[in-house]
């Protein structure tokens, strides 16, 4: 037997003996099945949760843009008073959703860029659908989100700007 073969054989024996000694002594134990089921469930919940969060925040961004209007002459107000954290959180939600998607087997078997584009488009379309369905108008009057809608949908800066007549219409 050559020196190299002998060295490899020794390494192999060391590995087998080392691992099996730990198995037999109970130093290493198999993690129970429920541990992995729980992990998968949490992962799925993470994906669903971040997707829902991203849809809601995208919808809220669309709603606020629609309400304040990105039209000519209003962009400066929109940028200065817009709650930037909402679209930032929406983008973070999408990014985390993509990160969760990457953990699934199908993600590498298909073209992941395509999956990402479909996911982002789905979130944006769902955001538009929620806004078009009139849910924002409902939530701004009823329910636990009313405060949030009133705070950012009725900002003082925007109202003041309209009161001064620069918006071309009177809100009072």
């Amino acid at each position, binding site marked *: 037997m050559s020196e190299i073969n002998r060295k490899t054989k020794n390494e192999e024996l060391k*590995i*087998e003996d080392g*691992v099996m000694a*730990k*198995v037999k002594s109970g130093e*290493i134990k*198999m993690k129970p099945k429920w541990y*992995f089921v729980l992990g998968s469930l949490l992962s799925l919940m993470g994906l669903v949760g971040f997707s829902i969060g991203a849809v809601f925040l995208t919808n809220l961004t669309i709603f606020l843009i629609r309400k304040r209007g990105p039209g000519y002459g209003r962009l400066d107000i929109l940028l200065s008073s817009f709650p930037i954290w909402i679209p930032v959180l929406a983008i973070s939600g999408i990014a985390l959703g993509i990160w969760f998607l990457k953990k699934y087997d199908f993600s590498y078997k298909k073209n992941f860029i395509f999956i990402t584009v479909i996911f982002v488009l789905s979130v944006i379309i769902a955001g538009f659908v929620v806004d078009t369905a009139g849910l924002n108008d409902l939530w701004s009057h009823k329910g636990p989100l009313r405060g949030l809608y009133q705070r950012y949908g009725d900002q003082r800066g925007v109202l003041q700007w309209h009161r001064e007549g620069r918006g071309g219409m009177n809100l009072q």
Partner: protein
Amino acid sequence: MKKLKKIKDEEIIEIVRSEDKEAYSEIIKRYEKKLLRYANYLVKDEHDAADIVQESFIKAYVKIKSFNKRKSFSSWIYRIVHNEAMNLVKREKRKVKIDEKMEFDSGVDIEEDLIRKELKLDTRNYLDQIPVKYCEPLSLFYLEDKSYEQISDILRIPVGTVGTRINRAKKILQKICQK
């Protein structure tokens, strides 16, 4: 134990999970040589490769109940070794040199053995010059006899990308050999 030698990996895993944890030694026997070779391509150090393989067998045992027996055990264990090796490469951020400790055999047919060793050393030398990204699928395909599908499962990249990387690796290898 004799019976174990004739049955498939996935069936042995089922035995390890439910009946006899010592059957795991059969899995180690079947894979350690291949995995040592594979880890060595990635980290280019025999001792590091041995540590990686040992750690991978331990991780595989701990996570054995998460293994889906409808899938290939081979791809699963190679994936664990790949992850362990990549962790080590990232941790140490090193460019590993080839193992220069190869010694000459004092035994039979010195000339033939020398040619074989030189060829092996040449191949390893050439592979060392190719980035891991391309060298890994090439090694898996030509030296470990894995199919594109299996390489895709091990590296978690689409089958098309496996083909692209192998072709790219061949072109790089061709350029290196022509120098």
